[in-house]
């Protein structure tokens, strides 16, 4: 996720990335990745802009964005919390972990807290099966998340100090 740049700077950054590509149309997925990294999500106007720049129908861009679960059209919070629901984590209580996170954050998986601090999502196997069940916050893996207390402590690290 990006720092506090203005939408205009986001657009410039995206445009210069697109300009740097030799093969534009062929790189739709790469461009979408980059755009999501800048904007945090892929709103309609960004998808439309990419469609114009890559000379691809906007419906096609929308179709691709809707297909891959990695892409999101809803703004994400400052921190993205992922629960692994792969086989090993599932067996070791991923469902309980997800429910506990839903309780503590007071949102359902796929949603963002009203203060825009956390987004809760699920993903499949991150290859840390030995630590199952795991949660991943902004790419950092936290293992053996069985207890509510442990989960709370992890989340606390990402809350602003009050």
């Amino acid at each position, binding site marked *: 996720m990006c720092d506090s740049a203005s939408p205009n700077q986001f657009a410039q950054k995206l445009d210069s990335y697109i300009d740097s590509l030799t093969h534009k149309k062929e790189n739709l997925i790469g461009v979408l990745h980059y755009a999501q990294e800048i904007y945090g999500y892929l709103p309609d106007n960004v*998808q*439309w802009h990419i*469609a114009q720049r890559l000379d691809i*129908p*906007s*419906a096609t861009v*929308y179709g691709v964005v*809707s297909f891959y679960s990695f892409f999101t059209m809803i703004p994400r919070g400052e921190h993205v919390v992922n629960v692994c629901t792969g086989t090993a984590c599932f067996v070791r209580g991923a469902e309980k972990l997800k429910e506990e996170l839903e309780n503590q954050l007071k949102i359902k998986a796929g949603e963002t807290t009203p203060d825009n601090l956390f987004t809760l999502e699920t993903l499949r196997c991150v290859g840390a099966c030995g630590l199952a069940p795991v949660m991943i916050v902004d790419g950092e893996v936290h293992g053996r998340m069985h207890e509510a207390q442990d989960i709370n402590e992890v989340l606390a690290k990402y809350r602003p100090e009050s």
Partner: protein
Amino acid sequence: MDIQLTINDISLKVPEGMSILDAARTINIDIPTLCYLKLNEMHYNNNIASCRVCVVEIEGRRNLASSCSTPVSSGMVVRTDSLRAIQARRAMVELLLSDHPKSCLTCAKNQDCDLQSLASELGVRHISYEGEESEFEIDKSSSSIVRDPNKCIRCRRCETMCNEVQTVGVYSAVGRGFETVVKTAFDLPLSQTACTFCGQCIAVCPTGALTELDQVDKVWKALNDPDQFVVVQTAPAVRVALGEGFGLEPGTIVTGKMVAALRRLGFDRVFDTDFAADLTIMEEATELVHRIQHGGRLPLLTSCCPAWVKFFEHQFPDLLDIPSTCKSPHEMLGVLIKSYYARTLGIDPKSITVVSVMPCVAKKYEAARPELAQGAETADVDIVITTRELIRMIREASIHFDHLKEQEFDHPLGESTGASVIFGATGGVLEAALRTAYEVLTGETLEKVEFEVLRGMEGLKEAVIPISGRDYRAAVIHGLGNARTVLEKIRAGESNYDVIEIMACPGGCIGGGGQPYHHGNLEILSERAQGLYREDRAKPLRKSHENPAIIGLYKDYLGEPYGERAHKLLHTSYVARKKI
């Protein structure tokens, strides 16, 4: 290299790379399919193997194979009719039906639906599967096309048509798994997209997911309103397709019977859009000469086709000064009915309803364009119905179409020449224009009026025609993808054409999105075109400028072609639009 294989014990040889399904067709074995559709003349190939209906058994393979996507191989032994294949096929259709509205009786596609016919052919008597059903909103936002995603079977024929043939790209499969459905960008209503309303998606949709906006009831209402004087006009391409709705062969000319049926339905006057096609030639030919003499921008592009007009407004908003400013023929006739003809009859234009019968769904949208009206209350054309809708009206009125005695159009706006009849086929507008341009520019009689080089299903046809010491470079394009290629060349300054005819639908209006369904058989389009050329040959007058009613109209009312009054009534302007 040819491949030897066996299908249902019949040995055959087919070229390498051919699918099992196509190979079977060469020996008259039909394997049913809902998604696979190949229309060679249009370079259309929807081959995504999504419906799984065409599965067959192949000796030595554990699983059934989809015959549309499996190429033949040497020594292959295929059974299309084994119990296993037939049961699997029926199961596929049952699965499709489990998530399909069971409203066949009231569906616009009733008895014209490929899914319905297949369920019937396979003897589906009950649906063994129960499960979730989709609930999508029906999109009635446009004045042309209705989208009911609940009836979509995800065959993606519409998407292939829109993206690859027309290059408009309005549709895409969106989502994944059960939720996948063909949608517009950002789920926008069709009216807010770059859809041209050509209706070719409707022409290939196997179910009722895509249909025209039905205006039949509006016409009945007008016909039963004692205060309305209801005038109808029919496009050239309707008369060679209408008969198909009543069991006649494609291409049968039913002009006289159609006129009789329209009178029976209660129309006060039956006029011919062909008259206005002759008028279009007068205006467009004069416009071309004017541009050449005054150093105007070339090429001149025809503007009869509303889907093509909307296409260039969205895709080439920087080139709005090159299309002809001529309104399309039915709009010209509409405005004349409400001005010239209203004056002749002494009727208030507000109490006249003009109904156009068109092979086209884009004409519905066109009629609603604000520029094509004389003030907010008087649209040039009030209601547009398609050939299919007229078939329904004639059936509704229990008219025995085949037994009708032929009748003539009303005068004077029903008079036409052979030049106007061929407007309905690709190349016809340009051919008609050349017949007039030649005689007007040279003052000599054109002996051979047929320009064979401009006819046929080739996507781009070109000709250089010398007239009075100048070579006129002309081109004929049908299909919007072909138009895009040429427009891009024009934009880049790489084209030296003087005049180009462009029609959105492959084949021209005979293949319009409002015509009776061809169900993948494009022979029908050629038959319709031949019908138009036969009608042209049978006409005593075959050049637009010889039409006595046209000559009279300019003399009595319009003044000069491309003159002041003609400009006010018969010409229009275009709007730059966004590409969505």
